[in-house]
């Protein structure tokens, strides 16, 4: 049996999947909050008739937001307090990130990486920013509907537009994230580790040499 190295603990896996799965539900119902599904016959697909009613779609959006909100704030506070900052960008990440991406399509050699790949760290901050934007504007929407806060018409409009537009950016980021994991075989061990928590020692030694050496040193 191949020797394994622990990459993610159960908490991290739970964070990732709670955010990912609720994020998918939020994206689907978020698109459904736009008047799209009836027009595009989605509501006529067997099992999707419920999407024709905005109240149904919004209800599920609200429920999924509970999981999403909990997942994201837990992630921020848990790792913030623990000072787990391995996913935050470092100097040289842009140039190294480009090298990693080029290597994925067979151009050049991939530089040795730490636990996370340089472009992963950049993507993390990017997607994190979008998620925070969605969360803040979403919370403002909840508060506004509760009438716990009263917004001026202009602020109300701006908040709604930011939520809708950043939803589209989130959709785009989500697609890029999933596609990059799925189409490049070099990333498949990372996908596996998102389910099991472990990567093969050989993979870590080869691709995440800096991380691997650090673990071995410690």
């Amino acid at each position, binding site marked *: 049996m191949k020797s394994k190295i622990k990459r993610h603990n159960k908490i991290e896996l739970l964070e990732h999947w709670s955010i990912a799965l609720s994020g998918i539900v939020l994206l689907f119902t978020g698109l459904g909050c736009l008047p799209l599904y009836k027009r595009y016959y989605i509501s006529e697909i067997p099992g999707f008739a419920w999407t024709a009613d905005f109240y149904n779609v919004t209800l599920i959006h609200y429920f999924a937001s509970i999981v999403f909100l*909990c997942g994201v*704030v837990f992630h921020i506070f848990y790792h913030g*307090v623990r*000072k787990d900052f391995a996913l935050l960008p470092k100097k040289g990440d842009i140039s190294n990130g480009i090298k990693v991406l080029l290597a994925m399509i067979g151009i050049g050699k991939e530089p040795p990486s730490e636990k996370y790949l340089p472009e992963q760290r950049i993507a993390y901050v990017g997607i994190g920013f979008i998620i925070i934007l969605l969360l803040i504007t979403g919370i403002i929407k909840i508060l*506004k509907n509760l009438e716990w806060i009263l917004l001026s018409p202009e602020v109300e409009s701006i908040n709604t537009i930011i939520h*809708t537009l950043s939803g589209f950016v989130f959709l785009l980021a989500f697609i890029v994230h999933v596609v990059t994991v799925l189409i490049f075989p070099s990333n498949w061990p990372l996908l596996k580790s998102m389910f099991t928590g472990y990567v093969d020692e050989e993979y870590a030694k080869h691709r995440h040499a800096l991380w691997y050496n650090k673990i071995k040193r410690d």
Partner: protein
Amino acid sequence: MNLSRRGFLTLSSVFCSTLLVGNYVDAAKGKYATLIDIDKCDGCKDQSIPLCVKACREYNKDRFPEPQKPILPYWPRKTYEDWSDKRDKIDTLTPYNWIFIQKVKIENEEIFIPRRCMHCDNPPCVRQCPFGALNKYPEGNSVINDKLCFGGAKCRDVCPWHIPQRQAGVGIYLKILPKYAGGGVMYKCDLCKDRIKKGQEPACVVACKERLGDKAVYTFGIREHIYDLALKRAKNEGLYIYGDKQNGGTSTLYLSKMPFEKINNILKALKERFQMPVEVENKIESTFNPIGKVALLSGAISIVGAIVGAIKSKKNPQKEQNNEK
């Protein structure tokens, strides 16, 4: 991140007290309301067009849509909503007619109901517009921003009375993805927003008063006064009220000697586009808001759990041995 225990406790108590106090914060009800006395309305029988309708059309005529033609259908569908050839239609709500007089025959008596936006206290159209194109103003009116409106008609779907009406071939959607997204601009009564902002009465109210004086169908004024007046008259004269409870309350109150159940039964039987259901639940208040509270509370609990969990895991670093930081 360094958050002291005291700092954390202060933060969470502020958050929790906001949650609690929030229950008692009064809804933003708006400054004005309209009372519509159905029993006084004769539909302006002596006029070619009811005066309130005429005044509304006249006052808002510069804001009516001028669509670019040919109008594209809402792909992949083959339809689109175009009222531009029916601008003279006054017996229903259209993008060119924001108020109409609904005629109903009940027990050999003809009654006339002026129909327009109810201007809800917690309007689903405003709360659910995904483009932020609808706003609730401090005066109590819900207003469509025709510069932002994509014409998806969601507001019409979520409105219990299906008031907003769509005109294709106008609006911001033409500049973005005219074939694939959007459908025009929605139009409806905004209670003559510029007039009421200046303290003037809406055009329909003024026109009715000019014809009927003290016996005018409409009474417009400070919300509390209008509510008091309606409740007092309902009690003293044995009248029925509509609009005070429906959809969690609105800025438009109808008074009638005829029960509204009876009126709506007729409207329902006639399959009228615009009915007056008596039971109108505001789902934002009854369904979404409780879940919203749970979401906020869960978020707060999650923060507490995260901080406690992180502190505990720091105290037991051996458990995390294989984990890189």
